[in-house]
């Protein structure tokens, strides 16, 4: 596949949120249990853009996200985040992360969970608290600042995790199946919420999902991956304009869903493993 690296366009524009050039990952290289998780990947994500990664289980979506987050070092190629090397970007707090497990700390209140990254970055207490309350307003959980995580539903916990990921105002949000453990209704609600939060913060998002409709509903572009070794098979532009609940019934929405499904099929025989929701 050729046109995978979509240029961010105009001269003088801000640096791309993510720029992967031939980034590859092989686990346990040279040993019997060697796994080529990612073939060299080229991917550019513009500031403020939302790109979904979709593909069969084990195709390297999480691995790609960890490379971008500098939680893993690529075995080949390079990664720039906001124009900086990934390691620098991590220390500078250029991105926030959210996973399928909310990963909240049970011994901290909701507010102090959101304050945790700020604590590590050396903010003082009053500023931390003020920011946490601001973030809770953003995710509409103001009344729960002093509750403990176990008092919250799964969807609320996930909102706290997103608030925490955004607390230090990163320009990039990395999300690994963040709504994967939620029921269908909550999930759709969270998708709408994410759209609103993104409009408010202007952060670029890389969003890993197994759900085709979710990918289409949220994304500016959907990157379809295939396995062994993981690579980006196709990138589908989604032109749906502003998303509302009506978008889910839009014929164009279904057209894109079909498009993504076919790209997935092309990637590995049948469209196995994907959810039609």
């Amino acid at each position, binding site marked *: 596949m050729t046109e995978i690296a979509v240029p961010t366009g105009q001269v003088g524009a801000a640096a791309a949120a993510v720029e992967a050039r031939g980034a590859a990952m092989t686990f346990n290289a040279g040993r019997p249990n060697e796994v080529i998780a990612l073939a060299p990947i080229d991917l550019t994500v513009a500031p403020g853009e939302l790109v979904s990664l979709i593909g069969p289980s084990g195709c390297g979506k999480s691995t790609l996200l*960890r490379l971008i*987050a500098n*939680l893993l070092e690529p075995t080949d190629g390079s990664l720039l985040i906001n124009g900086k090397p990934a390691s620098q970007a*991590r*220390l*500078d*707090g250029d*991105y*926030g*992360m959210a*996973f399928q*497990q909310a*990963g909240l*700390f*049970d*011994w901290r209140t909701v507010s102090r969970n959101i304050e*945790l*990254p700020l*604590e*590590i*970055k050396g903010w003082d207490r009053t500023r931390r608290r003020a920011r946490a309350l601001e973030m809770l307003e953003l995710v509409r959980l103001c009344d729960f600042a002093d509750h*403990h995580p*176990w008092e919250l539903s799964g969807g609320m916990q996930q909102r706290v995790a997103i608030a925490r990921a955004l607390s230090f105002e990163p320009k990039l949000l990395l999300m690994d199946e963040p709504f994967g453990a939620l029921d269908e209704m909550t999930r759709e609600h969270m998708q709408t919420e994410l759209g609103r939060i993104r409009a408010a913060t202007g952060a670029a998002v890389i969003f890993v999902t197994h759900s085709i409709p979710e990918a289409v509903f949220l994304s500016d572009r959907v990157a379809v991956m295939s396995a062994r070794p993981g690579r980006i098979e196709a990138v589908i532009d989604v032109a749906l304009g502003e998303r509302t609940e009506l978008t889910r019934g839009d014929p164009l929405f279904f057209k894109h869903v079909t498009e993504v499904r076919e790209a997935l099929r092309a990637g590995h025989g049948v469209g196995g493993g994907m959810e039609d929701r």
Partner: protein
Amino acid sequence: MTRQRILAMFWPVLFGAVFLGLWETFVVTRDIKPYLLPKPSAIWGQFHGNFTLIRNSTRVTATNAFIGLFLGVAGGALVALVANRFRLLRELVMPLAISVAAVPIIVLVAIFNNLFSITSEVPRRLMVTLIVFFVVFLNVSKGLTQSDPTQLELMRSYGASQSTIIRKVRVPNALAYLFIALRQVAPLAVVTAFVSEYFGGTQDGLGARITQSIASSRDAAGWAYVLAACILGLVFFGVAIAIECAAAPRRSRQLS
């Protein structure tokens, strides 16, 4: 809340009362000999009558248990923390801690007794410390190493240093395990202090008094000391639970 608590207490208390009533009538109607099974009322009478003596011997055992418990918990937690940083120490202590659980190390009291003077309480305290130490060490070590991988990745994504991760993730996580260990180890400390007395040394603790009473056919008195031992164990357990509830309202209960 209090109303609920009273209701929750109702059935256990009723059960206890019925049980004691049946016991009493059983002994009276069947004319059971006191050296086989004394009446609850006789035990209570002894408990009441010998209260000062019982209190003093309870104090001896309780002090041994408490000192050993305190030293064992502090030592176990501290060594676990250090061993978490230094692999050599961990590989040294871990197999020992695991095997100790399968060995009746309480017999070591006999040896400790030879090391110290005959009137010394140190051997018993040492024994309690040792037993508590290994249980706490194992639990805290587990808590320090078994953190949620998602939380660890998050911390790394924030650019947190190793020492920050230990302070903000590993130690709070281990604390929950420490409270679980405390719940287990508090009654264990009493039992150990108590059993240690059977291996010689000064005969002024609860365990020694029980043997003395039974040996001199003062059976109801023996049972009164047993009652005191039960109360002591329950008090230690209750305090451990109270500390746990105050410090970690829910998390540790989830883990157990």
